[in-house]
């Protein structure tokens, strides 16, 4: 097979028996199992993996994991396409297809590349300053296209995502040496442990060459992993990023499931409530800021080492290493072993110490006290110009300039501990000048930082530090078994000094933030323009605001700011760490809350009957209910008309099961309900019911319904459908918090009872055909009363209440009998013309009757007086919820919106719901209210509407205009009592 010219002949943690074919920017390549997309591209000699955000400069790989700023790719096509992934984190698989995001047609030959020439014209704040008039939003789409990242899929995501809640004693974040040691200690101590690591395999940055407890490092890792995976009290999660810390130690983890094991499950979002958290998330190496430091071929020393050691890829032929600390010497030796010629190690330290001596004795040239001035090259680095640090600030010593040819430039400006979670948990960071890093300072007691995340880079420190943190965390969680002793290894050199940016550099091309194309010059401009706060500079220059959230750029930006403002890093302060640490997919956050599970719907006992009989089921207040029953190919409106006709001329059945049913009992039940209702309930006779409004303390109508008295100390409160839970909770709140002295029991029995409303002039006739011990005659059982008895042998509560204006019986029957009763009523009433009716018909029936529907014909400001019930206030002497608010001046304002009827001048016009009532048809500029319900009434032979209109009750008869979507309809304000105003039918 062709390709993989840069692959080493042996070594690495790849599976050479499993070659995998893949595509990048339309070209075909292959790699091995165990590769990332990035390592496979490098193995195939692909050096340009992306284009910079603003200027479209060619960019190569800088990192080898989540710190990568340049290799941003879009994966796959169609519904599964995923934007903005880092090539360094994409595990290679057969047939994988990726393309770079910020370029067209591809990263190699990008049509937007000429933008580089405009670099001088696009400084920090360029977009803010240039595209202000008339509005940024006018330019935004075009700019986003040129400077965009990936594209979101258009089709619904076909994959599954899952949530998982879990609790543990100790959560260890990071599976490197410190994390492994911590998990080991905590597990042995007996704590419930979760170890989460974002890579496919544990071990972190552990190099093969190390030895721990006398074993090869990877063998040690495998042994620890085995011990943890077999322990009953530990759980190991790989490919799992702890991306956020939320209140009270809730840590969010995003687990990516690898293809073969997942069975369609792509990601799992863990919500882990951890008593103790060990942050062993490692550290991220920093680039150094100098001119043209973004050329392809310039990468972090740690990344170059990883490519060589883990992926068996030679990242270059001849390397120069520029470093400010000891850690890059290990990279040099690893690269040398991999066959890379080390041209020199350029150490910014004048006296680099033991590490340098060791390198020199291994034959490596070390240039101490030099720093990088500028890189040379076009589409790849060709050489690095260095100079000796001079006595005068910002100058190199005369004659010290050197040019070193190389095709790989490894940089190491020190390490930035990954303290994100600690900081999110409100832990404070303190600057340690010796380690040139922000380290965890005072913070929550339950957080333990260990290893490189705590600034301890050397392996022997990581192990002892991690083990101690694990043991301490376990102890804090009351797990105190003997954990044994910490794993040990040889002492390692890990000294470092602060070196951020070369003083003498062409600032315009010395990059601080690769992904957002922010240069040292941009920071200088921001400071010149007097931006001082680090938060302002960040937003103005957008440094640290790309999808990598400044993993490689934030510290350098802080240091440069300190230098430019003549202060220190602690004085500059640092920007806030916010979740997520690494991007999380929307699919993962949505989990299974999609489709039918987006919002759970409730079903009535008749659900199955409705579905089998053509009901069009819709969501009404969280209940799936019949909107209407579709007959054979009949039009919606025809169906609704037939349902209305049956109710007005014969008899209909309505499934009212969702109606709230709350039982209230006890010696104080009457007193309590009298306080809960606007209407007086104390005087209600046993066996009778009364319509009532419920208000909140602001006097606003929140619900209505009929309150029925079953016995002296026993009431049945009916609430609006969907209101039961809310009203029931309100009852309990008042009883527990305000009136604990009242002896009352409340029970929500909504689901225990099915409810069938039998309405129409022949309703009684139908019921009389059933076997019952209840006297249905009007004198014995008048309107607004309730009777308990048996119907077809089943105990029922029948109430004479309704919402249609017709003779109506609401039968409450134990829910399990609802379907049988419904079917019996239909069978017995077939010759009477009985029909089931849906919500739409009911709404039109009650509209032509002029009945108010709370929430439809009232809004969040309506009080009883607004709906024509103001007079009752004077008749009730007792206090009730909301009473005092009805005496406020606002409640007595004359121009309040009031419930009225509206008739269009043309009886054939159905006024649109939401249309506004306006005073003047020509100016149309002052709304006096709006239409809330509207329908064509066959019973009345004309259209009718209900609405809320300013001072409406006093304006009965007045002509108004109703305006909607450019059309104006002449109309009249009327009393809404259109249908059977005397109530003969209701009381029949």
């Amino acid at each position: 097979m062709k390709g993989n010219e840069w692959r080493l002949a042996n070594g690495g943690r790849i599976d050479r028996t499993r070659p995998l074919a893949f595509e990048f920017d339309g070209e075909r390549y292959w790699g091995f199992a165990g590769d990332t997309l990035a390592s496979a591209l490098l193995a195939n000699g692909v050096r340009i993996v992306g284009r910079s955000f603003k200027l479209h400069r060619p960019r190569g790989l800088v990192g080898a994991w989540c710190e990568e700023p340049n290799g941003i790719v879009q994966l796959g096509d169609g519904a599964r396409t995923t934007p903005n992934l880092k090539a360094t984190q994409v595990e290679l698989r057969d047939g994988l297809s990726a393309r770079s995001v910020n370029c067209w047609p591809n990263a190699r030959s990008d049509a937007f590349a000429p933008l580089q020439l405009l670099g001088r014209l696009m400084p920090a704040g360029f977009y803010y300053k240039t595209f202000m008039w008339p509005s940024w939003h006018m330019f935004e789409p075009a700019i986003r296209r040129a400077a965009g990242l990936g594209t979101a899929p258009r089709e619904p995501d076909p994959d599954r995502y899952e949530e998982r809640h879990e609790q543990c004693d100790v959560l260890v974040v990071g599976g490197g040496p410190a994390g492994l040691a911590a998990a080991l200690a905590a597990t042995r101590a007996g704590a419930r442990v979760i170890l989460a690591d974002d890579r496919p395999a544990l071990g972190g940055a552990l190099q093969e060459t190390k030895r721990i407890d006398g074993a090869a490092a990877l063998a040690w890792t495998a042994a620890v992993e085995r011990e943890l995976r077999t322990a009953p009290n530990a759980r190991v999660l790989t490919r799992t990023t702890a991306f956020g810390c939320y209140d009270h130690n809730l840590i969010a983890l995003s687990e990516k499931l690898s293809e073969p094991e997942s069975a369609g499950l792509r990601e799992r979002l863990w919500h882990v409530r951890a008593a103790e958290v060990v942050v062993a998330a490692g550290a991220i190496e920093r680039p150094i800021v100098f001119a043209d430091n973004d050329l392809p071929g310039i990468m972090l020393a740690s990344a170059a080492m990883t490519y060589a050691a883990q992926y068996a890829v030679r990242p270059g032929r001849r390397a120069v290493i520029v470093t400010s600390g000891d850690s890059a010497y290990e990279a040099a030796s690893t690269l040398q072993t991999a066959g890379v010629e080390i041209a020199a190690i350029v150490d910014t330290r004048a006296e680099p110490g033991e590490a340098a001596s060791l390198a020199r004795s291994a034959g490596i040239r070390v240039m101490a006290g030099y720093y990088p001035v500028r890189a040379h090259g076009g589409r790849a680095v060709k050489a690095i110009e260095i100079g000796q640090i001079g006595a005068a600030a910002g100058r190199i010593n005369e004659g010290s300039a050197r040019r070193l040819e190389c095709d790989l430039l490894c940089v190491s400006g020190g390490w930035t501990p990954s303290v994100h979670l600690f900081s999110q948990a409100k832990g404070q960071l303190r600057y340690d000048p010796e380690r040139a890093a922000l380290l965890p300072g005072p913070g929550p007691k339950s957080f333990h930082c260990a290893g490189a995340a705590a600034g301890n880079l050397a392996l022997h420190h990581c192990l002892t530090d991690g083990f101690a943190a694990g043991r301490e965390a376990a102890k804090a969680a009351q797990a105190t078994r003997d954990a044994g002793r910490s794993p040990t290894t040889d002492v390692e050199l890990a000294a470092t000094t602060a070196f951020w940016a070369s003083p003498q550099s062409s600032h315009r091309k010395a990059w601080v933030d690769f992904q957002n194309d922010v240069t040292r010059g941009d920071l200088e401009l921001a400071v010149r323009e007097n931006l001082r706060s680090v938060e302002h500079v960040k937003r103005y220059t957008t440094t640290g605001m790309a999808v990598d959230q400044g993993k490689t750029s934030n510290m350098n930006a802080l240091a440069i700011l300190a230098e430019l403002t003549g202060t220190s890093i602690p004085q500059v302060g640092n920007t806030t760490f916010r979740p997520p640490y690494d991007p999380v997919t929307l699919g993962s956050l949505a989990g299974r809350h999609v489709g039918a599970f987006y919002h759970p719907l409730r079903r009535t006992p008749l659900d199955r009957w409705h579905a089998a009989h053509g009901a069009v089921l819709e969501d009404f207040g969280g209940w799936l209910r019949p909107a209407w029953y579709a007959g054979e190919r009949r039009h919606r409106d025809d169906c609704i008309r037939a349902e209305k006709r049956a109710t007005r001329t014969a008899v209909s059945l309505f499934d009212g099961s969702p109606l709230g049913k709350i039982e209230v009992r006890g010696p104080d039940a009457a007193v309590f309900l009298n306080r809960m209702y606007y209407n007086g309930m104390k005087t209600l006779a046993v066996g009778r019911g009364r319509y009532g409004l419920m208000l909140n303390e602001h006097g606003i109508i929140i619900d209505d319904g009929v309150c029925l008295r079953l016995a002296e100390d026993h009431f049945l409160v009916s609430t609006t459908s969907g209101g039961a839970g809310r009203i029931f909770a309100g009852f309990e709140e008042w009883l527990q918090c305000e009136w604990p002295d009242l002896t009352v029991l409340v029970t929500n029995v909504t689901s225990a009872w099915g409810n069938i409303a039998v309405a129409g002039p022949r309703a009684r006739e139908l019921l009389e055909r059933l076997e019952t011990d209840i006297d249905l005659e009007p004198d014995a059982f008048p309107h607004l009363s309730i009777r308990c008895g048996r119907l077809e042998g089943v105990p029922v509560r029948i109430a004479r209440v309704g919402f249609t204006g017709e003779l109506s019986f609401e039968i409450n029957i134990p829910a399990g009998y609802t379907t049988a009763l419904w079917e019996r009523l239909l069978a017995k009433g077939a010759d009477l013309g009985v029909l089931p009716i849906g919500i739409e018909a009911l709404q039109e029936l009650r509209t032509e009757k002029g009945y108010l529907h709370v929430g439809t014909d009232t809004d969040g400001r309506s009080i009883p007086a607004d709906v024509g019930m103001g007079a009752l206030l004077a008749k009730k002497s007792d206090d009730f919820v909301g009473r005092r608010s009805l005496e406020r001046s606002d409640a007595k304002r004359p121009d309040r919106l009031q419930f009225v009827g509206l008739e269009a001048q043309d009886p054939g016009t159905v006024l649109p719901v939401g249309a506004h009532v306006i005073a003047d048809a020509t100016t149309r500029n002052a709304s006096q209210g709006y239409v809330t319900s509207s329908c064509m009434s066959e019973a009345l032979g004309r259209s009718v509407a209900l609405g809320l209109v300013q001072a409406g009750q006093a304006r009965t008869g007045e002509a108004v205009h109703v305006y909607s979507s450019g059309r104006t309809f002449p109309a009249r304000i009327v009393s809404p009592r259109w249908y059977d105003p005397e109530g003969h039918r209701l009381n029949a």
Partner: protein
Amino acid sequence: MLEHQQPFAPLIQGGDTTFVAMSDIQMTWLSGWGFLLLQSPSESALQDALMSHTGLRLPAPQTVSTRGDYALLWLTPKEWLLAAPASETESLQAALTRQMATCLAAVIDMSDALAVCELSGTRCADVLMSGCTLDLHADTFPSGRCSRTGLADIPAILWNPAREPRAVRCIVDRSHARHLRDWLADAAGCPGLPPAQ
């Protein structure tokens, strides 16, 4: 007389109450149960009534007391749920109501209001904890434990009935039974159930 349907009846076909049968997780609607909701501020009177008619003691918070075919679940400081064979609920309701006549109490038949689904198998906790924040591992949610909580975005009472075999019962409002079934089956990774007709 009218035909009675149990709350889960619309969700099953051919009388099979089991809707998930995998090697490591099974889900079944429990049939033949009746439920009485007991409310009373007079704990001792209620205790006496229960003792004489069922032999049950009032359970401690978040626990269940059981005796023979009866189980009594703690719901709130003033509220308990008595589970009994469906054939006995009517007579039990009458007996308890009679004995509690002199003090304030509510004995309410909730048999038709609640649907009970039993999960069994080693994957119980895994499936439930994908939609419930309680720690439902066998050691932290032991037998005899019952908790009212949220499951699958709806209110639910979870009840661990026995040490062995591993099982958790989920008691939900009947109006949510369909949602619970679909959600649980989906969580178990067994999609493609036929919709109830």
